[in-house]
Structures are given as structure tokens and as C-alpha cells.
């Protein structure tokens, strides 16, 4: 169990860290896939099996594909030319990230470990799916409905924007700019 955790953690750390340094944006996207898969593994280890599958479904089946499509539609001219961030921004970002990371770690160390004891062990053994379904349909029904509406509206909006893009004759290529 703990070994699996270390394995997934390693994948997460390695792949997400690699995104920072890899210059090919498509590779970044596939590294992201590995990260997501590993995160879903972490979810399973944390006892959220439904969420893990949902993670794969939404992130890999949805968002990652969208990102890849975005990349493919926009990177045809300069496939491998992701500009490297300049020195100043690197320094500031390293500083900031170091600060934030230190902060988070400090907070975690300060946490009261007593309160973090896993109190749902017997539940984790089984699946959380029926409970999620039950809660979604009772206590969180409004949120559930609202997010459904929101999702539909967003998809329609995205389709509208994309349709706009299609209607326009492609003239924005270099000659004008």
C-alpha cells in the first residue's frame, strides 16, 4: 500500500516536475496525462474509487483531449518552439514557489495529527460510490442540478465561440500582421 503510494507519488513528482522543464508543449500534455493517472491512483489509495475513475474520465478523457486539440489547432507553425522564460521571471518564480512551498509545509507540520486520523477505514474498504450517489441526490441536489446547468451552458458557450471561429474566413495569417 505505502509502496504504491510512493510509486504514484514518484510519478506525480517526476511528471509534473518535468512539465516545468520540458520545452515541447505536446510532451507537456502527455506528461500531464501521466500526472493525472497517478493522481487517480492516489485517489484510490485515499479511498475515493469513484473519484479516481471520474478523474481519469474528466481529466484525461475530457480536459486533456481538449488541451491536445487546442495545441494541435494552434501550434502548427512552431511545434517545438516554446519560448523559455527569461532569467528574472525564473528567479521570481523560484522565490515565490519556494516561499509558498515552505509555507504549505510549515502549515502541514503544524497540523494536529490527532485530528487527521482516518476515521472511515471500514467504509473505505467498500466503495464510496453509493454514498456519493445518495448524497448527490439528497443533500446536494441543488448544487448537483446547478452544476449540470452550468456545464451545459458552458458547453454551449464554448460551442458558440468555436462556431464563431469557424465562420470567419481564415485571414489572420501573417500577411496582415
Amino acid at each position: 500500500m505505502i509502496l504504491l503510494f510512493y510509486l504514484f507519488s514518484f510519478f506525480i513528482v517526476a511528471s509534473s516536475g518535468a512539465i516545468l522543464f520540458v520545452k515541447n508543449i505536446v510532451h507537456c500534455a502527455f506528461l500531464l496525462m501521466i500526472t493525472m493517472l497517478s493522481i487517480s491512483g492516489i485517489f484510490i489509495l485515499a479511498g475515493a474509487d469513484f473519484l479516481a475513475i471520474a478523474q481519469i474520465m474528466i481529466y484525461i478523457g475530457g480536459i486533456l483531449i481538449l488541451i491536445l486539440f487546442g495545441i494541435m489547432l494552434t501550434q502548427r507553425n512552431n511545434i517545438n518552439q516554446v519560448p523559455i522564460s527569461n532569467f528574472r521571471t525564473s528567479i521570481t518564480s523560484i522565490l515565490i514557489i519556494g516561499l509558498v512551498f515552505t509555507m504549505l509545509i510549515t502549515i502541514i507540520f503544524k497540523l494536529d495529527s490527532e485530528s487527521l486520523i482516518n476515521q472511515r477505514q471500514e467504509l473505505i474498504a467498500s466503495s464510496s460510490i453509493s454514498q456519493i450517489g445518495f448524497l448527490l441526490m439528497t443533500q446536494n441536489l441543488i448544487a448537483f442540478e446547478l452544476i449540470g446547468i452550468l456545464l451545459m451552458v458552458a458547453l454551449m458557450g464554448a460551442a458558440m465561440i468555436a462556431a464563431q471561429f469557424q465562420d470567419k474566413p481564415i485571414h489572420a495569417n501573417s500577411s496582415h500582421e
Partner: protein
Amino acid sequence: MNEIPTTYFLFLAAFLFSIGLAIVISKKNIILILMGIELMLNAGNINLVVFSRSDTSMIQGQLLALFVLIIAAIEASIALALVVLIYKHFNTLELDELNKYKN
């Protein structure tokens, strides 16, 4: 079944969050920044799921994480549609380039 300590997950999430933040701050491509944002959201999700283990009766953490997932999907769909549109208009996705069109 030896239980994985909660703090391990938290460390992982903190790391993931920092990486996401780093990507958001340092990268210049909009799509990469989006990826960074997704990573940060995932870090949050890990925390939610893990804290949900300490919840005796409910699994509110998991529910919230589920909603976060859906919101992330919405955000990504809209954002990528916009990205495509931006690319069509300016023929670039580099923030520094786009900054020229600010005015």
C-alpha cells in the same frame, strides 16, 4: 492494511500545488498556464479527498472534489475555445506577444 498517513498526501498536494504555481508563473504559453491551473486544482482535490477520510458520517470532501472536477472541465472547455479564438486573432499564444495588443 497499514494506513498511509494523511500528512504524506498533504506533502504531495503541497508539492503539486507549488509545481502548478510555478508553471502558471513562469510559462508564457496560455495552454501551459491552463495545465498549471489544472495541476493546482488537482492538488486541492487531493487535499479534499484526504480530509474526507476524517469525516465520520459524510464524504463531503469527495463531493466537493467532484464538483471541482466538473468546474475544471467547464473552465477548460471555455478557456480552450477562447484560446483558439485568440490564436485566430493574434496568431500567437505567447503572453508577451499578446501583451502588445493590450491597448
